Each structure stands twice: as structure tokens, then as C-alpha cells.
């Protein structure tokens, strides 16, 4: 039980995530990917006569069950498997983040940024709302996210996925180094 409740090492985690690929292919010819669920949710809730949301989402309901499963998994891990605790990140990262204005290091997310109290502050609004919008817009424009492109796409040797992944990383690195310091100070 000790092993389960401790944070899992990268090689255990990576191997298990990689095994989702054959699990989905063998159980029903499904290609691993998550961002498409956002498109299906749009089609179900607010199609607004937009052509992009007239796709055959009914044949993709597996994807929604997979997403609901992730929510359940998050609940199980945090409540029964010791998933919520301070994250042992590199002390250098902690030092930089403290200098840039992050205060809470007690959980998976910094509560001084991600909380309902912060939602109405400019900083909170950018991290919670604007960030989410960019994730939803960007992944669909790119045709996939970390799971669909970076893991499934590269594992199936599709070069457009490698190009997309390089852009995910480039966008994230440029933002972290040159934009976040200003956003964290707001």
C-alpha cells in the first residue's frame, strides 16, 4: 500500500499511460485523445447551427465515457490513494516561483492563484478563465492535445503530430520564460 500512496515514479506512470493506447485500440478501435470531448460537448450543449458541431458525435460517445472516467479517477486518486500533497519539485523552481509571486506550495495547484476568491481578480481571471479558453481554442485548432498528438500521434509515427508537439512546447516555454513573470505579478 505504501507504494500506491506515494507519488508514482515517471517510468511507472509513463508505462501505464502508454498502455492506454493498446487498451483503447484492442477494446474497440479507439484512438487515444481527449480534446475531442470538448468538441462533442459543444455539439451536444450549444451547437448553434455551426457546421463544425454537426459532426457525428453520437459515434464518439466512448470519448465522453472516457472523460467521465478521468473525473472518477481523479476523485479516487485524491480521496483514497493519497493524491493530494505538496509536490516535491526542484527547489530552484520553487525559488523562482516564490520570487515571481506564488505563495502556496501545499498542494497540486497553488491556491493563491486557483481559487474562487481569486476568480474576480485580474490575475485569477487570466489563469483560470483566459488560460482555459486558450487550451480549448488551441487544441481544437491544432487538431489534438498532449494525448492525441504528443502521445498517440507520435507513437503512431505521424509527423504532423510531432510538429504540433514542438509547437506546444515552444508556446509553453516562451510563455513560461517571457510572459508568466508579468502575469504572476498582476
Amino acid at each position, binding site marked *: 500500500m505504501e507504494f500506491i500512496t506515494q507519488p508514482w515514479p515517471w517510468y511507472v506512470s*509513463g508505462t501505464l499511460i502508454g498502455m*492506454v493506447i*493498446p487498451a483503447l485500440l484492442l477494446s474497440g478501435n479507439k484512438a487515444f485523445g481527449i480534446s475531442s470531448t470538448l468538441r462533442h460537448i459543444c455539439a451536444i450543449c450549444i451547437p448553434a447551427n455551426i457546421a463544425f458541431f454537426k459532426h457525428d458525435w453520437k459515434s464518439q460517445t*466512448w470519448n465522453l465515457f472516457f472523460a467521465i472516467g*478521468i473525473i472518477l479517477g*481523479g476523485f479516487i486518486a485524491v480521496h483514497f490513494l493519497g493524491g493530494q500533497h505538496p509536490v516535491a519539485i526542484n527547489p530552484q523552481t520553487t525559488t523562482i516561483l516564490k520570487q515571481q509571486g506564488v505563495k502556496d506550495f501545499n498542494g497540486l495547484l497553488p491556491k493563491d492563484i486557483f481559487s474562487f476568491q481569486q476568480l474576480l481578480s485580474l490575475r485569477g481571471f487570466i489563469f483560470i*478563465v483566459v*488560460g482555459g479558453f486558450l487550451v480549448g481554442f488551441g487544441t481544437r485548432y491544432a487538431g489534438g492535445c498532449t494525448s492525441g498528438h504528443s502521445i498517440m500521434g507520435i507513437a503512431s509515427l505521424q509527423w504532423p503530430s510531432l510538429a504540433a508537439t514542438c509547437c506546444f512546447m515552444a508556446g509553453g516555454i516562451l510563455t513560461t520564460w517571457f510572459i508568466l513573470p508579468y502575469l504572476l505579478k498582476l
Partner: protein
Amino acid sequence: MRNIKYLITGALFGIVLVKSEVVSWFRIQEMFRFQAFHMYGIIGSAIIVGLISIQIIKRFKIKTIDGEDIVIPEKKFHWGNIYGGLIFGLGWAITGACPGPLFAQVGGGFLIVAVTLVSAIAGTWTYGLIREKLHH
């Protein structure tokens, strides 16, 4: 009921996302600052395991449990891979979460992330709305 297997696979995936700390904003910060191998190790080993599995499936022509041939959809390059990729990267560094972790965080009790998730849905909706006007 045939979708239950995807619910279970999703739950196992969600557990791994939390237990590996992939859902942590701090881990994403560490990754983009090149201050730890953790995230690179996870994504890299997941790719290798996936790649080997797919090669085995192809080499031995393994079929699904229902006896169908396994087909992996081909991804065609378009400029959205570049522009959209950069925009997603920007959002990923800010929220510290890609779509999978957003779902896992909500399940883990970070209810504020439900707002981020709704905003991500709004982002996808906006993409659908202006899709024709964007360069692909």
C-alpha cells in the same frame, strides 16, 4: 453498456494522472523551465510503450476483441497544427493543465477548475464559430 470499458480505462488513466503529479501546475512549470526530467520521462516512456504496442499490433495483425481490423486514423498536416499548437502551449503554461488533467483536477476536488474547463469548452466553441476564417 459497451461504453463501460472506456469509463474504466478513463478512471485508471485519471488515477495515473494524479499519482504521477502530471495534474500539478508545479510539475508543468518545472517542465517548461527544464528543471526536472519527470514530465519528459513520463511523456517519453508513454510514447515508447505506445509505439512498441502499435508495432506489435501491426506486425502480428492483432484484431480488436470484436474481431475488427485495427485502423489508426491518419493525421494530415495543416497550419493549424502550428498556430493552434502555439496557442495551446500558451494556455498550457498558464493553466498548468492540458484537457486530460483538467478533468482529473475537477474530479480531485479542485472545483475552481470546472470554470477553466467550461472556458476551454467556450474556446473550442469559438474555434468552431470562426473556423472558416482561420488559416489552416
